[in-house]
């Protein structure tokens, strides 16, 4: 099996969050025709891909880094191990990790187990969802929505990408789950 994975170029990520919104739009994780629910300053909304923004250094020597993250479709998915009802599977053909929403009981063990915050609890359905690598698009030989939308061309994907490369600071120990991602700084 060739494992599908992300190739993320941290030099090219400009922090525009287009990937996040392209993913919401493609996967309809937030309804377009209802008001956004906000609780304690946070959106009650499912986002499969997010961009972490951070500041590095002390004034006046400051840099900013942006890290786009979604499910890493790990070699040893912590979510899969944590699921009490075997709703999470790893697809044999390309290693995409998927949640069966019919089996999911919404216990959120997977969300707690994942070191990357990939599984997202959907309050409306009471189930947990996450990035599917846009497998509906892959099946038609089309790119995932985040890849085609990425302004800086920071998100690419491939098979057996040979990660993790230059992991961003604070990224969980890749030894834990074997994330299918290679980080680059071009």
């Amino acid at each position, binding site marked *: 099996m060739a494992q599908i994975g992300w190739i993320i170029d941290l030099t090219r990520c400009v*922090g*525009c969050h287009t990937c996040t919104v392209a993913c919401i739009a493609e996967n309809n994780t937030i309804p*377009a025709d209802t008001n956004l629910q906000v609780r304690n300053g946070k959106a009650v909304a499912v986002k499969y891909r997010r961009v972490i923004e951070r500041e590095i250094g002390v004034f006046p020597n400051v*840099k900013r880094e942006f890290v786009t993250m979604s499910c890493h479709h790990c070699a040893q998915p912590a979510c899969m191990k944590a699921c009490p009802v075997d709703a999470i599977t790893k697809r044999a053909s390309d290693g995409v990790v998927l949640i069966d929403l019919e089996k999911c009981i919404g216990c959120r063990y997977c969300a707690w187990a994942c070191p990357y915050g990939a599984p997202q609890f959907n309050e409306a359905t009471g189930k947990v969802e996450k990035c599917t690598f846009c497998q509906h698009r892959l099946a038609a030989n089309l790119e995932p929505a985040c890849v085609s939308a990425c302004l800086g061309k920071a998100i690419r994907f491939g098979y057996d990408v040979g990660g993790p490369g230059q992991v961003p600071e604070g990224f969980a120990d890749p030894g834990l789950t074997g994330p299918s991602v290679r980080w680059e700084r071009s």
Partner: protein
Amino acid sequence: MEKKSFLANELTRRKFIELSATAAAAASVAPQLLSGSKVEAATYGHPDPLETTSGVETVFSMCLMCHSRCGVMAKVANGVLLKVDGSPYHPNCLDPEERLPYSTPVEEAKLHRGKNCAKSQAYPTLVYDPQRVKTPLKRVGPRGSGQWQAISWKQALDEIAEHLRTIRDVETPIDPAFPEFGPVANKLVLSFGRWQNGQKQFTDRLFGSGFGTVNYRHDHTSICEVSHHTAFKLMTDGKKDHFKPDLDKAEYVIWFGASVLEADFPMQTLARKVANFLARGGKMVTVDPRCSKTAGKSHRWVPIKPGTDAAFALGMARWIIENRRYDENFLTNTKADVNGEKSYTDATFLVRLTDRAFARDASGNYLVVNGGTVYPATQAPNFKGELDPGTVEVDGVPCRTAWSLYVERVMERTLEEYADICGIPVDMIVDTAREFAAHGKKAVANPYRGPVKHTNGVYNALAIGTLNMLVGNFDWAGGNSGGGGQYAFAGGPPGTVSVGKVVGGVTPKGIPISRHGKRYDKDAPNLFARDGFPAKRPWTPFNGDWFYHDLIPSIEEGYPYPIDTLITYWNALPYAAPAQREVFERTVADTEKIKLFVAFDVVIGEVSRWADYILPDSTSLERWGTPTNASPAITTKVGNFRKPVVGSTIRVEIAGKERLFYVPTYARGNVALDAWREVGEVSGNWPEAEGPQLAEDVFIALAVRLGIPGVGRNTFDLTGAKEGLDWRADLYSAWDWYLNLLNNISVDSGVPPEEILEKGGVFAPLDTTPDDPKAAYSGPYLKAQFKGLLHFYIEKLATTPDSMTGRPYDPLPNVYPVRDVLGREVRDDPAYPFAIVTYKDAYHGQARTVQNSWLRAIKPENLIEMNAADAKALGIRDGDTVRLVAPSGAATLGKVKLIQGVRPGVLAVSHHYGHWASGAETVKINGQTVPGDAARALGVQSNLVGRLDPHLGNVCLMDTVGGSAAFFDARVRVERV
């Protein structure tokens, strides 16, 4: 009228997806919707159907979530907008080597997504915003009371027309003592927040030449970037208002208050090109009080004191001049296209020290010195002049070169003094100057809003502009680009139709109340004779873009004359302009100062909540348009064409031609068609117009009622129009207008109209072969060249009196403090120690994107960003709520975020949040409570604590040369709550 139509959603996106998935599964017509195993089906929930799915359409159009004019490709099924991606044809959306050849069929193109930004991706949340206004509303309580009645289009337009008829008088002067004010018709004032090319010409034509008001278009540029435009127009004798670095080939770029990873335009294109530039090893410096995303990715962040950019730039200039790192060959050229250069400067031109005008010969040629002899610039030996021949007498008048005057100005301050003014170490100025000069033609210094939204905005922009002249980067690959230009949508070239001309129309006369582009002492002689200097309010003779922030304050003061009716469109003045809310609200509440107030809007907004009538607008993907005029970052030619991606049409024959009338989402019928039916030009039993309508069609319906020229039969002069195209002599619907514009682009580009319409515009071929006649490059040069004169010395400034001081303006770049309209320094009060700078998030527009729930899902509220050291000194912790208080007493609350990336003494606030309307407000319609969405009010809008001009008192500080509102000269104190 269906009473519930304001609230009721019709076919919604979510329902569509659920229905279609169910239907597809049952009928197996679209297996992609639910393919694969049960596990996968359950996992991926409700993704969009694929672009290849039967019944799914791909529509090529143009985005308007910001003004970048990016092509889009919309996915639509069953008339519902599902997703918006970038157009693979459009040069904004893909790099030259990736962009599809224009000849690619749309069926293939739809499989290749181009880039668009998060805002554009969020379009469905604009179209299907649950807070949208879906019917005309009439105020039933006092203005601003939030009490409305839903009325029909017929009632709304009949009542508005009845009032407008009382001021439609193009003969009687407003005031016989002041003929310069023009006729009574000028009492109708239209103000557009965002109204693009194609739309502008439509209303200029209808309200200027049809109604006869000179106040036909008070649009928004004075709160946007206008001083930047003014400065570049002054530098180029009006020929160019904007340059951008050619990022594809540049090596070194200094962004002055330009955060191209977040804003500017086209943001998505510049962001992609910057990513390429960085990956290629390009070096970037960002001058900004805030460590913007651009600064944070730059090799050097220059955390300058707000508004002191000229000091940094002139400090750089001083080092470059003292070390002779300027391009002497470029600067000594006396005309275009000589000695290996395309453009040239006035460096060697002689300036008369008496009247401060350029010395000229009898034919008007500039004069230069070569070998001790004075020559006309165009006849100097080798087209060379001397930079500093000393004082030279011409016709008995002592003269010096523009260069020597510029150098004298630059040398007025030492590097240490410049460093002290801008708060940046000398070393950083010198390092930046050395590197900039070392990269020569491939180095660019680019200003955007940061340096220009200050009272000294034009002088900051001029100082930055001259850096580019020192290295001579204009027209070079990797240098300063003037852009590839646009096709002539409004006419001009042979075979096109000049659509602005109204057969039988009138010429609007008099001074617009904005007074922009007008010279007080000459254009208003009677007013000048009465008031003298200073004028009651400033006049901006060099500003070509109206005077938006001073519109309402001028109306309040009745200066230069009182108005009657205000019509606004997509306008957010009290939110979007600094220190405007109070003056706006007290002026529009006054039914004497504004007798009739009509607002077009998609939601009940900060402006429209005060109107007498709200007319529901279609969204920007529910209309046609020709948003041409690409950013200079695009080096190839474009002819953008927008078309509706959803909605339907009614086709009717009138006057021998099929007329197309557009019906937007949530609408029935068409308001222009109803108007023609009512006057008997057409008959039919289509439903009466309901719901949001195209603004152009509403204006047509109004014009029919008023009986003004500009609509109906034979309103266009088709003389000389190229044969074989479906030109329209008549104007019955918006489509008649846009069809003529489409034909014009077709004539100018040679591409059939059908193809332009299908592909969302026409874009010049790719730069794949060097001999391509439309290539981006020509050897070491850009193919699209400015090839013109650039000024160090601005003669017009030296010879025109300032309407407030009576003295001529300063003709050279200079360092100025914050000044009021009388030119007096506005000193900082130590009790208000913090400056505020605002910025745009990459995923928001200005006021408008509060409607997009997918964007607010990224960050539901904004915060007041404060340097952690400042916060510590004040005992403020991260997340604390504070009150910002302006010297005027205006105050606003917000939560604090402590950061390192802002200069101490400066607060940074993004300019999108803290709304009080735009769907946030609970209102009553027909006596029923319609709840607002309180989440849209989260966050803070720092414009509320903007700084008032101390002399005028009812308007923000401003740049009276460039015409800008001073966004970044606010000073506040921070109180813990």
